[in-house]
């Protein structure tokens, strides 16, 4: 059957994406949107979470209409299948965040031992604060080594607790302990997910999901938080800074290097290498004006937050960036890097450069990155990009003339400083109603949703109703491109929020960083809850992932819920084939952990759900 080609306006609200999609279509370049269309109809069993490939008696499927099989060969019913599938997705997501954190911690340890000369401590004060949390004396000569050892031990530890979980309010920790979901060790919980979802282990969907929440907590308050905190120590705590976002940041007369992926261990070095006078001179000798680094996805967010390196786009723009014909090298590490990139790159002069031993792409140039020689490798990578500049075909260059100015860099420390050093002005604004509540809008792009439509409309609706928005990841990049990350965007906010933003000189949407930096949002929630003497689940706050697609998002959603936050999903999770699992996640969880999921694909309705929740929370708090 012939599938009608959708118009570019049905695929994205971003004018830069629309322009590049039209151009890609004319050139016969296939994008994720085309492949998504070719996948239609997607398998109904998969959509409902009613298929299982966990053993070789299967694959098994359960008939959602009750006519065919109601159980797999082993006897697993819809509840078990949906819960086990969810658990495995969550484990993969938690593993991705935590393995990223492990690499950061290992690099920190090598740096402490003097074996990673490319890296330095940028924020000693923060390092001392972290050491104190781990019970390590700040003046100890082995402080760095001890901190590295303590942090790394939390990955492999079998018993005990994860240090940063104790940043949560005591009431929250008590709930986790009562339910038996206080995580014991980061890797242990992930491994146990795989064990429990093996054939013939856990057949109780409630028990499975409770362990899922424990694993997610080991991500949010463990792996992700460790990544954020050590990255801050090594690369600096973000502070407000201005930059630009969208494909228009690519420069027609410069060597364009795009960093894409997730770990700042690499992108920080690329940014440093691109400032090397020798390489800039080399670029000039090739006829370029200079070297322009731009980011995509979370590694883009990391260098945006800390150095103001411009953002070329979010997840669904990775192929479109190459299609501009103006990219000399796209340097990638791990996560959200589409395997399709090499086929787009091969249509242009662009070099796709993979750097992680964990993530290779056939056809791409592999320049493996190691902590000991990081800056040298980064220089080689940038040199390869510069030397590729003369291969650029100028007739094929098309850079959309769209980019928006942004103000970013809102770490918890930066927000506190914007508030004058104390949470009181924010608490006051919440109490007097000028700030109705706080919403975290995060997550990916997904071709199931018109690109950025979910993010931008939800966020606009929230700020219009005086809800202060904090954002990370591809959602923050969507807001960046839509001009929402500027103090001037306060004009789009309701009267109360507008006044607060204008008084503080901040945007109504605060970019808090990459996806692992959602841990910053947890820290902020904990601080606000502690200041008010309540639990996180009592706050006038809610979260949303309007265009989520990755397994990491499953873990994030689960740790948000387990931390007591109502979390609204814009795309449907693959569990609806089990009425019991669906009811537990969307209703039952509220009575147990205080948070729950809701599914609402329409961003305007999602805003309503979040605002109604915030209003109910305010009424309960008596404010």
């Amino acid at each position, binding site marked *: 059957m012939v599938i009608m080609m959708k118009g570019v306006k049905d695929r994205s609200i971003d004018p830069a994406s629309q322009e590049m999609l039209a151009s890609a279509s004319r050139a016969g370049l296939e994008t994720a949107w085309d492949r998504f269309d070719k996948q239609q109809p997607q398998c*109904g069993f998969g959509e409902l979470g009613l298929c299982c490939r966990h053993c070789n008696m299967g694959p098994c499927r359960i008939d*959602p*209409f009750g006519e065919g099989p109601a159980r797999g060969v082993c006897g697993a019913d819809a509840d078990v299948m949906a819960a086990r599938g969810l658990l495995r997705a969550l484990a993969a997501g938690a593993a991705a965040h935590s393995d990223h954190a492990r690499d950061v911690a290992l690099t920190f340890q090598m740096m402490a031992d003097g074996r990673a000369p490319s890296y330095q401590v940028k924020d000693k004060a923060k390092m001392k604060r972290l050491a104190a949390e781990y019970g390590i004396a700040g003046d100890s000569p082995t402080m760095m080594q001890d901190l590295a050892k303590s942090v790394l031990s939390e990955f492999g530890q079998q018993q005990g607790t994860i240090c940063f979980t104790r940043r949560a309010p005591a009431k929250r920790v008590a709930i986790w302990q009562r339910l038996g979901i206080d995580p014991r060790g980061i890797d242990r919980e992930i491994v146990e997910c795989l064990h429990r979802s093996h054939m013939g282990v856990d057949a109780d969907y409630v028990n499975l999901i409770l362990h899922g929440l424990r694993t997610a907590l080991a991500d949010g308050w463990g792996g992700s938080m460790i990544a954020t905190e050590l990255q801050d120590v090594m690369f600096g705590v973000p502070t407000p800074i201005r930059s630009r976002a969208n494909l228009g940041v690519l420069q027609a007369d410069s060597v364009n290097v795009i960093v894409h992926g997730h770990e700042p261990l690499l992108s920080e070095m690329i940014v440093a290498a691109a400032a090397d006078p020798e390489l800039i001179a080399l670029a000039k000798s090739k006829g370029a004006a200079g070297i322009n680094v731009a980011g995509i996805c979370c590694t883009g967010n990391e260098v945006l937050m800390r150095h103001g390196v411009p953002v070329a786009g979010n997840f669904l723009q990775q192929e479109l960036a190459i299609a501009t014909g103006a990219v000399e090298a796209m340097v990638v590490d791990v996560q959200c890097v589409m395997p399709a990139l090499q086929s787009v790159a091969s249509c242009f002069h662009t070099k796709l450069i993979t750097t992680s031993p964990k993530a290779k792409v056939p056809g791409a140039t592999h320049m493996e990155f190691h902590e000991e020689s990081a800056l040298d490798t980064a220089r080689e990578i940038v040199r390869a990009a510069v030397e590729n500049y003369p291969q650029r075909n100028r007739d094929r260059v098309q850079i959309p003339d769209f980019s928006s100015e942004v103000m970013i860099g809102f770490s918890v420390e930066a927000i506190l400083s914007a508030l004058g050093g104390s949470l009181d002005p924010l608490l006051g604004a919440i109490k007097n109603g000028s700030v109705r509540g706080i919403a975290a809008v995060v997550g990916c792009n997904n071709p199931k949703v018109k690109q950025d439509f979910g993010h931008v409309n939800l966020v606009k609706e929230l700020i219009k109703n005086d809800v202060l928005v904090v954002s990370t990841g591809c959602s923050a990049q969507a807001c960046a491109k839509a001009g929402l990350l500027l103090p001037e965007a306060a004009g789009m906010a309701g009267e109360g929020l507008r006044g607060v933003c204008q008084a503080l000189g901040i945007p109504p949407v605060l970019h808090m960083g990459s996806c692992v930096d959602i841990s910053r949002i947890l820290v902020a929630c904990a601080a606000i809850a502690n200041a008010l003497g309540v639990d996180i689940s009592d706050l006038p706050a809610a979260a949303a992932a309007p265009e989520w697609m990755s397994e990491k998002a499953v873990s994030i959603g689960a740790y948000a819920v387990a931390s007591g936050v109502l979390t609204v999903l814009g795309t449907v999770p693959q569990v609806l084939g089990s009425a019991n699992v669906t009811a537990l996640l969307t209703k039952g969880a509220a009575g147990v952990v205080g948070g729950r999921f809701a599914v609402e694909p329409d961003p305007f309705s999602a805003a309503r759900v979040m605002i109604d929740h915030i209003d109910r929370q305010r009424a309960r708090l008596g404010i």
Partner: protein
Amino acid sequence: MPEIFVRLDRCVGCRSCEMACATEHSAGKSLISAASEHPRPRKRLYVEMAEGTKLPMVCRHCEDAPCASVCRTGAMTQDPETHIVTRDAEKCIGCWMCAMVCPYGVVGRTAEGRVALKCDRCPDLDVPACVAACPTHTLVFMEAEDFSELLRVDAAARLARGYRSRA
């Protein structure tokens, strides 16, 4: 008139056609809502496994359809122009004569009632739901001549390849 044809070598047994059929014949017409509907939506075609091969079995809407000719109450009728055989649930008495004479075994029954159920070729759709849902294009909706041409071109290509490799 286009018909539903089955390309016998392509089915992977994913049963997407069955799911799309049941969904199209549900009240909400979406998979998500259909999964929780009562009475349960029923499919009208069946993916069978025979002799190691997966095959979707769907009503052929035969000329001089046996199911229609044996129906004593006039519930099962064939449209003289489109040749589509449909059944009127009000008139069906559940005698199952139609099921007994169907050469393909594609007359089923409703989930709760004692009423025959069969393919109505999706009167609200340009392309039947099962065909639209088939990810491997096992099911196609086309004129008989076009389908034969499709097979003929495939066969000619196989012949040509065989001839060339021999030469």
